[in-house]
């Protein structure tokens, strides 16, 4: 573990940051080349060029933003709630966002900005509900938090299923696919919205990362040593809800990214959130791009929802973490 001193810290940030940036660039290149149609990026025919720029690149780039958003939100929530199992999907935050998206689709049709806005609202409400249910006079333990997440997830799922009965059959199928986490509907507008949210959310959480280092140890401790606990909590909840809301409105509930990515980062780079948050953004982006590439190519020309791939990796990790604690 590197000494978190000023110069040593910056060197470490640069070294790892450069590594993760190279990995992300490579993932995007791989994601753009592979698929139902294999493209050689450097000599494209006209149709291939259309496939690349109109279909595949928006999808790969959106996947990167979704991955970064979910991973950063997971890292932030875990530190804030002192629980390595906290994850947007497991806490019901993703389902809150999904419900918000659905309401937006029903009320505002295809108006592209309504979906992220209402998804943010849904995510924020779900976060607040889970937090209120999980906390008690005796504080908040890991089990209580996860159980609250399960309850809120179940509740929101039922409401979503009730609402899907309002959709017609063709929309229903694409919607079900989307619920499981699906990047196939990617557009460049969707990408830019998600990109802006990912950058803003990561920056906000980065300003809280030193405070989160203290919160991670204990809320009382953090207060004792000078953290404005209420302000940090509000900033982290709002930023995570924003990140998850926008990501889910674009791609559905891709689960477990927020669990897997920060955990792997902590294994390699330690628990200091000044590293965990930015590295999670870069690595989360690579992770979802690669998982989606896998989902597109495994049974090509048919596709799997990317959420199924991330859940296949995430569930065993969750069980392992649960056993370890």
């Amino acid at each position: 573990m590197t000494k978190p001193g000023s110069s040593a810290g910056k060197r470490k940030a640069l070294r790892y940051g450069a590594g993760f940036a190279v990995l992300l660039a490579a993932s995007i290149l791989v994601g753009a080349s592979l698929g139902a149609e294999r493209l050689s990026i450097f000599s494209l025919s006209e149709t291939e060029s259309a496939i690349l720029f109109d279909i595949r690149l928006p999808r790969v780039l959106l996947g990167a933003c979704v991955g970064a958003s979910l991973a950063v939100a997971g890292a932030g929530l875990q530190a804030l709630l002192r629980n390595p199992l906290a994850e947007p999907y497991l806490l019901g935050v993703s389902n809150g966002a999904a419900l918000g998206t659905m309401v937006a689709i029903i009320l505002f049709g295809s108006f592209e900005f309504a979906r992220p806005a209402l998804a943010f609202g849904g995510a924020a409400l779900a976060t607040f509900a889970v937090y209120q249910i999980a906390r008690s006079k005796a504080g908040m333990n890991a089990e209580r938090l996860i159980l609250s997440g399960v309850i809120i997830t179940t509740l929101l799922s039922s409401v979503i299923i009730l609402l899907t009965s309002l959709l017609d059959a063709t929309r229903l199928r694409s919607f079900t696919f989307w619920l499981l986490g699906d990047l196939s509907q990617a557009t460049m507008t969707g990408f830019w919205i998600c990109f802006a949210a990912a950058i803003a959310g990561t920056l906000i959480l980065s300003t809280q990362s030193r405070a989160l280092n203290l919160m991670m140890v204990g809320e009382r401790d953090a207060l004792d040593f000078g953290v404005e606990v209420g302000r940090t909590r509000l900033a982290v909840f709002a930023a995570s809800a924003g990140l998850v809301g926008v990501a889910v409105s674009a791609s559905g509930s891709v689960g477990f990214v927020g669990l897997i990515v920060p955990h792997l980062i902590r294994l390699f780079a330690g628990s200091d959130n000044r590293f965990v948050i930015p590295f999670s953004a870069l690595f989360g982006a690579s992770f979802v791009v690669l998982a989606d590439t896998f989902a597109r190519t495994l049974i090509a020309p048919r596709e799997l929802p990317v959420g199924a791939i991330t859940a296949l990796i995430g569930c065993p990790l969750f069980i392992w973490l649960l056993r370890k604690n």
Partner: protein
Amino acid sequence: MLEVRGIKAGYGGRMVLDGISFEVADGSITAVLGANGAGKTTLVRLLNRSLDPFAGSVVIDGRQLADLSRRQIARSVAVVAQENETSFPVSVLEFVLAGRFAHGSAFGWESERDIAAAETAMNLCELEGMGHRLMNELSGGERQRVLLARALATEAGTLLLDEPTANLDLSHQAMMFRLVRERTKGCGGSAVVITHDLNLASEFADQILLLKKGKIAACGPPEEVLTEDLIADLFEVDVLLDRNPRTGNVRITTLF
């Protein structure tokens, strides 16, 4: 100088402390004694405003605690309290550096000055070379020393210690109190210590505050406050008092 004026405090509607006033002079140690539930921990929480009082005020060096920001408070008051367990792999050095949060920028990196303060504190607490160990791999006594190191790293003038010797063996108990005394006498700081060890209080404290059901039962120098009647009243045990032959301080023996 730490002044507590007419504090009433509690949780929700429940009154835990009712009308507490006392002063802690610079360079002195005050021990807070009392039975379980007497309000000792609540009192310490008020002294760094991690709890707001219903009424009354706490003044540090002429400044109302209520007027200070959390960071300002953390720079002048440091706490050693029962710690929460963390499930994250946090290293000892990272943990001690949390004591430097209120210095410099709230984000960004610690300065060389911060690192130096943390390392000095770790050396004082006999933790040299342990900076890279993980908190959840330490023994109870080691963790307790890390908590003290984090408090010393703040370089705050006032130390609040909530049962700091729990988990410590005899030699480290002595070390803990020696460090607290050096910090208070040497640097003109002050300390408020909650303890159940009457003899440690008698040896190390300049002033003893006896709390009973949220009110002050007695407050003064150890030899005035540590009387058989007061102790019997407070803890409902019979004790034998004599003098420590070496230091001349009051020595308490519980009679069973």
